[in-house]
């Protein structure tokens, strides 16, 4: 099993640990310019492609797992919320303005464009074996606030965005990526249902930091990958 992507591959690496398993993780964040743009085309760097080809296994893409967080992790200076068409009765931020769903989706599509291009590049170069793995569900607010890193002050002073709005934003983002994958004939692997609480947030015990799953989360994903690869 080959896992390729950004920081979300760390959950897999953590899950694998030092055990001897047939898992190969390529973290693109460790490369400068993993994708090369020539004119209108985006391609994976040849040496990374060689790494993939040398393993000759099913490829799971974790690219683009955090794009939705740009718009909705921290409270926007003009707080917004929106109604999710499939679940219109979910609670809404009482202090936010309502933005039409279509406009939010369009904004997220623009945000996701580079991710979709990367998925497309991977699918073109990795052949038909590529599966896109869903981004982890959003963390509960407490886990975001306890984040110890450099952004702690920024997040605390601005406030975490309204939780249900973050959940909606993640769902819309997943919907965009999923429908793109379906359009180009890629398999899409949703986040493990058992990783979520009743509302749909990532269980605190599976949360590594504000936006990432931990090794336990990785282990659940890994089970899915191995099942899908079998």
């Amino acid at each position: 099993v080959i896992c390729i992507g950004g920081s979300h591959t760390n959950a897999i690496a953590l899950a694998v640990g030092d055990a001897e398993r047939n898992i190969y993780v390529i973290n693109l964040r460790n490369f400068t310019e993993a994708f090369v743009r020539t004119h209108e085309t985006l391609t994976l760097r040849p040496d990374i492609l060689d790494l993939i080809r040398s393993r000759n296994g099913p490829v799971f893409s974790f690219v683009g797992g955090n794009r939705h967080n740009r718009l909705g992790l921290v409270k926007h200076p003009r707080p917004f919320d929106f109604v999710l068409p499939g679940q219109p009765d979910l609670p809404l931020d009482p202090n936010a303005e309502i933005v039409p769903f279509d406009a939010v989706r369009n904004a997220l599509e623009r945000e996701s464009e580079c991710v979709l291009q990367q998925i497309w590049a991977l699918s073109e170069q990795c052949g038909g074996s590529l599966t896109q793995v869903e981004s982890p569900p959003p963390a509960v607010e407490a886990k975001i606030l306890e984040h110890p890193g450099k952004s702690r002050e920024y997040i605390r002073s601005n406030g975490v965005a309204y939780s249900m709005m973050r959940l909606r934003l993640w769902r819309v983002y997943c919907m965009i990526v999923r429908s793109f994958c379906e359009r180009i004939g890629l398999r899409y692997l949703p986040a493990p249902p058992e990783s979520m609480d009743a509302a749909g947030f990532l269980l605190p015990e599976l949360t590594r930091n504000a936006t990432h799953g931990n090794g336990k989360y990785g282990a659940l994903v890994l089970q899915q990958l191995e099942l899908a690869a079998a």
Partner: protein
Amino acid sequence: MSHPYESIPDYARWRRACIFEVLSDVDPVVAFPLKITARDKVATAGSCFAQHISRYLKQSGFSVMVTEPAHPMLNDADVVAFNYGIYTARYGNIYTSRQLLQLFQRALGRFEPIDPYWTNGDRFIDPLRPTIQPDGFASLREYELDRSQHMAAVRRAIQELDILVFTFGLTEVWINRADGTAYPLCPGVCGGTFDPQQHVFVNLTAADVVADMTAAIALLREVNPAARVILTVSPVPLIATAENRHVQVSTTYSKSVLRVTAEELTKSLPNVHYFPSYEVITGNFARGCYFADDLRSVREEGVRHVMSLFFKHATDGSVVFAQTAPPTQSAETLNMRFMQRMEEVVEVLCDEDQLDELPRSAQQNGPSAVPTAGDFQAPV
């Protein structure tokens, strides 16, 4: 023998007022009594020609009220597609006096239309703003919340405006027989279903329009006694008529009624003024050249002529007539800063995830900018 025409000013004589080598020298505005200052909050509404007025006022730096602005996450194309910022609130084109009156009544809780929404597949359409966003609303709840937000924005506009610029468009209107709801577009055209039992065509008379506008202005002044009003008539002909006659004949009727009404209102109500943009575009002196090839749309030169006169006569000169858009607005800048900052935050979060407690196998290679050492691998 002496007579009254001996001493009339040049602007009252056709030859001296309308025959000019340079068309933009024609100036039919005489002693316009209202002078808008840069501090005045100007609200705009009306038929499509009102969009031009709104645009020029905004780009020249007037305090054009927008009480329902687009969220800054929307890009320019979506701001336009979702009809934000075109007028003071997101009401779209208001073609008739009846629509304006009912908008004010709804905003103040005095009127509730009998058919609150239409459906189009799984989408919800606002019968009173059927084209306000490209595919209607994605859920009933979204529609209801948006409508309530919109009504609050209209209420705020009418409570706080200093000057309302309203452009009359049409007299032809489709009405719901049951409660008199005036639709901006005939049901069935852009949503809803036309039902002759339910929907009736009305061509407003001058008396109707005077009554509507008198009631609308009374409502406006009930909550905002100092509000002043500038009326204009759109020069854009009817795109189609529901009367069984030639569309040009219907256009003449509509525009005549609206022009007469504007005149009557300026005489019967205080602080209501008429600005002759209609005459600038349609006057014989223009020889029709202000209309585009479809003989309906107004060319930019025509709009520019109108607005240069508007700035000359209806403003106090504190703001310069500008033909180009102002630099990026503060809300967009705010959003840009937020998105840039969030890009950094998310990047840092991802970097930190790299650095924290990775398994030994990963740490051996570690995060690196060196491509060949870039991948880490669990033991096979």
